């Protein structure tokens, strides 16, 4: 039986079929980027709340820890945005969002800016940029679902 089937597989046309999607996994979500951006803002607020005059060792320790968390979440936010930009959004989305590349590019730049600075304004700008991307993502998903229904 096995010999027959193996011979058949040589005679019949064979194709590679895909069962899994390890790459790409198809799981995309702007939420991690939004959480990371919110964390950046929270850290900036906390850093600003620290006493500036005569900080204690505890204050200094908190400052360093907050800067590390801000740095890490700004990096994470950028990474999540780049995944959405390069993996989720496809060329067909350009017709839906003509300024897609500019929006992502600016948001990624804002992540770096938030690493360099301790600025409430920059952190709020980052949140706004990531929210805009989340909204684009929701629209793209709605369009995809409409097409497939």
């Amino acid at each position: 039986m096995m010999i027959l089937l193996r011979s058949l597989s040589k005679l019949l046309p064979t194709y590679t079929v895909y069962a899994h999607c390890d790459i790409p996994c198809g799981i995309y979500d702007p939420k991690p980027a939004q959480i990371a951006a919110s964390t950046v803002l929270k850290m900036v607020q906390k850093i600003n709340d620290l006493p500036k005059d005569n900080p204690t060792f505890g204050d200094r320790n908190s400052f360093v820890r907050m800067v590390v968390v801000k740095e890490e979440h700004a990096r994470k936010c950028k990474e999540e945005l780049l995944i959405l930009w390069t993996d989720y959004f496809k060329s067909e989305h350009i017709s839906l969002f003509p300024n897609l590349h500019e929006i992502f590019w600016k948001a990624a730049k804002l992540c770096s800016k938030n690493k360099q600075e301790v600025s409430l304004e920059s952190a709020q700008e980052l949140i706004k940029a990531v929210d805009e991307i989340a909204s684009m993502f929701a629209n793209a998903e709605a369009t995809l679902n409409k097409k497939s229904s």
Partner: protein
Amino acid sequence: MESFLLNNQTVLASSPPFIFSKPKVGDVVVFKVDNIIYIKRVKEIYTSPSLRGASRYFLEGDNKEDSLDSRKIGWISRKQILGKIVFKF
């Protein structure tokens, strides 16, 4: 699709079973989307009068947590289904 199928396993897919009957829930089928052939299991079948009796198929991988399937690519038409897995070896 583990443990039903393992990586690099060979399967025999056949279309005749679907000439005489329609794909059923539980059938493992091969289907084409954007020139990529996938293999998934029929999870749900939807037939609506608005589709003039044509059915749409919701296909899902056995390992849902890392499967790209109808949850992402949507319902599949009968025309996209190439055949049923009749043998694996």
